[in-house]
């Protein structure tokens, strides 16, 4: 997608969207492709997954704890 096409999906001002795209590109979460005068942005799925994977075990740890809490308290309620 071009920056303009992306920006049209948000209420945010165009320069703000550009700034966000710039940061996401610096973090390698987006990749740029020059096509004539236009720049197309692509999602870097591999990098996205890397970022998600960093938090995922921590999230999973809490998810397991909270699932346990829910199960225990449901039994507690029916007592």
């Amino acid at each position, binding site marked *: 997608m071009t920056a303009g096409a992306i920006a049209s999906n948000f209420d945010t001002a165009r320069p703000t969207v550009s700034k966000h795209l710039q940061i996401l590109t610096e973090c390698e979460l987006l990749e740029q492709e020059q096509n004539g005068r236009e720049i197309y942005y692509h999602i870097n799925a591999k990098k996205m997954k890397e970022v998600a994977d960093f938090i995922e075990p921590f999230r*999973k740890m809490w*998810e397991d*704890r909270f699932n346990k809490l829910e199960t225990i308290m*449901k039994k507690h*309620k029916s007592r």
Partner: protein
Amino acid sequence: MEQKTRIRAEDGRQELVITREFDLPLELLFKAYVEPGIVEQWMGTKVLKLENKKHGSWQFETTDAQGNRYRWNGVIHEFAPNRKITRTFEFEDMPFGVQLEFLEFEQLTDGTSRLSMHIVYESVTHRDQMLRIGMAQGMNMAHNRLQDIASKSE
């Protein structure tokens, strides 16, 4: 699969927010944080002390499979039943620093509730270190499971 537990950890900030919606009335969710016997069950830890009041303190202890004992503790700054707990959290004898936790409990419907845990760390480095511990624990659990399966197949 739907993820019930969400974590918001923005880059370069020394805090994170964990949110979870429970299929439980608010009172039961709060009770799970207050009654030592129940805390022990879902946290998988021993509760040495849990004083649910302002200026109260708490201390938990866990023993791992190798018999190593770990303790953590903190002070309760605010205790508002069915609404909010503000407390500190610190691992004993570990260089992780102390963290400040804001636990907010909210009723959604008669039978559902939400918990939001806002945790503030000493620095961005401390926060990322804690996230990595989560990763290490996840790896450990995976290894333990692997070991269980492996030893059963022997």
